[in-house]
């Protein structure tokens, strides 16, 4: 039994929590939205207090075997690629540690050759003495592989379904293993069996009609809470940002609807962490920090080596799985101007971690850098 078995009928099989959630998504006027905001803020303070967890993404590699029309890392995009070696990963992690981060999200494209399970395990082990909380956002794995990641010292798995609309999913994922909708949908369950202690799920908003997307995500979350209960869940609602490939979203989620979405989740799932990344603008992040968000990234880079310039000497193109040196493409000029691998998407809020902390303190929120200890899981 898995969520895959009930997913296609989820909208007709609502339970009290998801029924309430669906009602909360009904169109609201400004006054009603204000009321939802008040409730969301109050519930957030009750459950999470005056705190905000901080993390940073650390991109390991932008190699990818998938073609996903909305993603800058898509296989067929002619972008500058690199996979950091272990020493380079440690350099990036040490830099982030010096800025305060004790919680890192390791991100990589899906590529069995460059981003192997063994490589990821080595990355985790190399930084775990420095970074108490390590999360992973990479291509889906089998349960035993997830167990290996946990054993190496990884606490959190993040996997977004991108879109819960099967037809849209098929259209957008044109080639590569990511085409398999169900394989991805079952990821959080495999991660649970593998021993992860926090699991982050979400959808990429802009790909499909937002209310249906949100309800499917809520149903997924409710299913996981009932069936995979020994885990702390987080949700995230990333909205499409400009990226290589120039994808234009068909279903823009407006700021007003975005707020309603956050409030509806907070009111329905009071104890679930809600993450807001640097994809969003400064004013939106500043205001939402008080209204429902519990975890934020800060000063993010979405390209490998983005924090310290590591890997800049190894930039290349990858064509049909083969490395092509930049010189061969006769555009070393563009490389000189770029100096870094290509980012996954453009960030919006470019303030430093220190500036984000100042904003949080001004909003009477305590920036929490450490909220996990390696000793809880680490046995070796």
């Amino acid at each position, binding site marked *: 039994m898995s969520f895959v078995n009930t997913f296609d009928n989820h909208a007709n099989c609502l339970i009290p929590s998801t029924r309430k959630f669906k009602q909360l998504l009904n169109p609201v006027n400004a006054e009603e939205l204000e009321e939802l905001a008040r409730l969301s803020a109050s519930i957030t303070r009750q459950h999470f207090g005056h705190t905000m967890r901080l993390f940073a993404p650390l991109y390991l590699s932008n190699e990818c075997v998938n073609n996903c029309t909305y993603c800058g890392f898509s296989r067929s995009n002619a972008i500058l690629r690199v996979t950091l070696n272990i020493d380079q990963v440690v350099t990036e992690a040490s830099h982030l540690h010096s800025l305060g981060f004790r919680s890192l999200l390791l991100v990589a494209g899906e590529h069995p050759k460059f981003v192997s399970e063994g490589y990821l395990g080595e990355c985790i082990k190399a930084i775990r003495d420095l970074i108490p909380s390590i999360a992973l956002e990479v291509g889906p794995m089998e349960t035993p592989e997830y167990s290996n990641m946990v054993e190496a010292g990884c606490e959190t798995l993040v996997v977004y379904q991108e879109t819960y609309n099967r037809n849209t999913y098929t259209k957008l994922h044109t080639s590569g293993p990511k085409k398999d909708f169900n394989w991805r949908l079952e990821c959080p369950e495999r991660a649970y069996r593998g021993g992860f202690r926090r699991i982050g799920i979400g959808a990429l908003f802009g790909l499909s009609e937002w209310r249906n997307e949100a309800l499917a995500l809520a149903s997924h979350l409710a299913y996981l809470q009932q069936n995979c*209960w020994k885990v702390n869940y987080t949700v995230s609602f990333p909205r499409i940002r400009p990226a290589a490939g120039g994808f234009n979203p068909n279903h823009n989620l407006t700021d007003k609807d975005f707020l309603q979405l956050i409030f509806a989740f907070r009111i329905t799932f009071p104890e679930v962490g809600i993450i807001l990344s640097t994809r969003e603008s400064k004013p939106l992040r500043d205001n939402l920090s008080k209204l429902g968000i519990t975890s934020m990234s800060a000063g993010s880079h979405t390209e490998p080596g983005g924090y310290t310039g590591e890997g800049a000497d190894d930039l290349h193109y990858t064509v049909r799985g083969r490395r092509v040196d930049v010189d061969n493409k006769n555009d070393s000029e563009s490389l000189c101007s770029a100096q870094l691998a290509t980012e996954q998407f453009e960030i919006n809020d470019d303030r430093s971690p220190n500036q984000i902390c100042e904003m949080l303190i001004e909003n009477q929120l305590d920036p929490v850098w450490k909220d996990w200890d390696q000793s809880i899981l680490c046995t070796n």
Partner: protein
Amino acid sequence: MDQLTIADRKFNSRLFIGTGKFSSNEIMSDALKASGTELVTVSLKRANLSKEPDQFVNILDYIDPDKYLILPNTSGANTAEEALRLARLAQNAGLPNWIKLEIHPDHQYLLPDPIETLKATEALVAENFTVLPYINADPVLAKRLQDAGAATVMPLGSPIGSNRGLDNEEQIKIIIEQATVPVVIDAGIGKPSHATAAMELGADAVLINTAIAISNNPAQLANAFKNAVNTGRTAHNIGLSEATNEAHATSSLTGFITE
């Protein structure tokens, strides 16, 4: 002096304070001072357990160990084994060998796992820790923990952070009646009147965190809780009359009898 004794340590205050959810370490520190507490819990997963100072992870720098007994808690542990690892780590970091055992794998309501809690208590007592287990209000579990060597039992009034007060009052009464170790009501106490009620019932102490931390004025509310705990304790010591449904005259009805 109506002191509380846990293991061999005496406390003048029966109000324990948790340190999560405050808007800053300074505000937390002021609230501790105003509460008059002598015992403060700290989540190990949020503390710096290395020997090196850390400007970003420094909650312990704001809790003076000469004024307060620091009671590390194992929040984050899902199993006895994980709680043990955290406790040993705290001990190696030079924290007291007292441990507040919190094992709550259910993240929706943070309700404690009774089986893992009992296992962990047995193991930690064997390693000479002073163990204060957080439990659901289950009288038999309380007895089992007591037999296993727990220094207190800490039944929850209602789920952590709920501010619902003593939802489990009837079970708590049984625990208080039967316990041979101090009973500390932990979790769910949302207002001073709840704390007074818990103390009137005969609880030996209460532990407050959320209510104070998320208050508009943590220090003043901490002081209000201090007074509420003292009021409840005084009332308990004096002994309260039973409530009845009927009115009773305050002057004697049978005072005319002279012999």
